[in-house]
């Protein structure tokens, strides 16, 4: 009886009058429709046959859905599109795993060890967060060109495996772990790498997940940097592939939407599966960008 009352109090709209509830729902639903509409429009257009694209009045849903056929036409128009998706996946996984290694090592070093210049080095790393990428786009390109890395996965992955943001985020997480737990392992004779691997990392799973989803999302959606360092199909990522389709003025919108759909869906699934960590990552390091 009491439990039920408590539960109702918690989950139900407690002190909201009916007009306020109605107003809130009306505003929020209208907004939500605008937020979701582009996704629906994308999906429905991706399945429209060409004749239905330029119909007036505009048809929201396709009369004859031809999803499969449009998919095939997309691959005819852009034969390497699957390759682009694969490349995006390779770059995303490469960068995320790379950051996971370099940044968790560094974060552990900064969080748990004393050495001369520690604060200065850390401050310099953080200062890099203030530099917008566009400001160093040109020297970055010249550096990659000098290394002979243009049009290679090295260019797309290696610089992306270092991150001041992830360093900051993971260091914060490691500092939350009570020292005593790690000390127990140290007394048992474990070296720092073993402590990191067997104690610190397992205790930081939520932070690692938050960092990973944000890194994956940023890498998958990256556009300007790949635009500059890669120009051949074998290293082209999917965002560039879509932009190329868009640049081809003949490309009909159904194919463009099919391409966008294929590039968007993986991130939507990732988000829906790991929503909690996305939100935590943003709240934690909302300072990024």
């Amino acid at each position, binding site marked *: 009886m009491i439990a039920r009352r408590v539960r109702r109090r918690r989950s*139900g709209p407690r002190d909201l009058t009916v007009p306020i509830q109605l107003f809130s729902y009306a505003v929020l639903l209208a907004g939500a429709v605008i937020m*979701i509409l*582009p996704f629906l429009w994308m999906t429905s257009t991706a399945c429209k046959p060409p004749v239905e694209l330029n119909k007036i009045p505009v048809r929201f849903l396709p009369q004859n859905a031809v999803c499969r056929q449009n998919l095939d036409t997309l691959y005819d128009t852009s034969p390497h599109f699957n390759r682009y998706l694969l490349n995006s996946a390779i770059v995303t996984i490469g960068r995320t795993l790379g950051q996971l290694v*370099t940044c968790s090592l560094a974060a552990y070093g900064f969080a748990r060890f004393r050495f001369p210049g520690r604060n200065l*080095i850390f401050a310099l790393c953080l200062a*890099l967060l203030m530099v917008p990428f566009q400001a160093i786009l040109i020297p970055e390109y010249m550096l990659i060109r000098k290394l002979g890395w243009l049009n290679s996965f090295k260019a797309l992955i290696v610089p992306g495996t270092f991150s001041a943001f992830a360093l900051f985020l993971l260091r914060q997480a490691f500092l939350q772990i009570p020292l005593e737990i790690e000390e127990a392992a140290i007394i048992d004779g474990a070296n720092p790498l073993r402590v990191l691997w067997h104690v610190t990392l397992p205790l930081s799973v939520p932070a690692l997940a938050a960092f990973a989803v944000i890194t994956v999302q940023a890498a998958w959606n990256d556009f300007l940097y790949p635009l500059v360092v890669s120009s051949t199909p074998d290293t082209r990522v999917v965002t560039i592939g879509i932009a190329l389709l868009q640049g081809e003025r003949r490309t009909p919108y159904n194919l463009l939407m099919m391409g966008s759909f294929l590039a968007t869906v993986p991130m939507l699934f990732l988000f829906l599966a790991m929503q909690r960590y996305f939100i935590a990552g943003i709240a934690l390091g909302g300072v990024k960008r």
Partner: protein
Amino acid sequence: MSTIRLFPTHGRSWLTRPLNWLGPTPLSRRKALWGLALIAPNTLGLFFFFGIPVLMAFSTSLQEWNAIRPARFIGLDNFERLIQDDKFAQALTNTFKLIGLVVPLEVGLALGVAVLLNLPLRGRNLLRTAYFLPVVTSTVAASVVWTSIFQPRYGILSQVLKPLGLGDTNWLVDPGLVLIPVAVVAIWQRLGFDMVIFLAGLQAIPHELYEAARIDGAGRWGRFRHVTLPMLSPTTFLVVVLAIINGFQIFDQVYVMTLRTVPGGVSGSATTLAYYLYRRAFTHSEFGYASAIALVLFALILLVTVFQLAVQRYWVYYEAESEK
């Protein structure tokens, strides 16, 4: 029998005791070595791939650097050229216009949505998800979809605006309008991000303050006006600053949305600073001049960041004072 000591242990020089600077005791030295080894990969990588480019950005901006001739030092000529370059002035103006359009709307809408979604409504988690979805999509794909929504005649928007006689509006071609679709995509994609930060800020407001205001006879609006808004002001400030910084970097939307018509907008009407520097560098191969533009962009963003850090310090102080 005497042993010859190559490195006498009583020496004080760093040569004879190469690791002394690391710490006073052998244990502390060993720990320091571990620390340095752990931070080395990321720190060296950051230095090489981001630190060096930062330094290079300054030197490149003082050079004439194009595809034809070898680089040569020309002092501040690139910056002098900036002052006289109408296209640069236009890009600067467009960037500020865009920020003026995006930031107030983005922050205002996000605040409104966050406040409503902080109410104990049924299904609010689902609604939050809806508002956050655009954040995780790629700006390129989003811009493509919105290009189609904004296309004249056959887009949904034209359909909606047809009764108003705006059905044939060519949003992406009209120089007076082209910044609007660009802004819409930017707002659409950032709203959820700001909302999350606002929600975190709202949830951090102590409940007692609302109770106290209620006892003082404050109504719903009064509580919002005199408790929520003031308590949320540090969050709002942070969100505004982040939105401005983000606004300065708008590139993908302009690149993608004007690609089908005139890249950069008809007579440069959609060209932002970031887009202009990209075009200067990678279409015209003027790396030196483009670096000067990049430095201006950097300086503007740095100005906002420094302002934020200065004001934030004041805020922390203010909170500590009021707790006494």
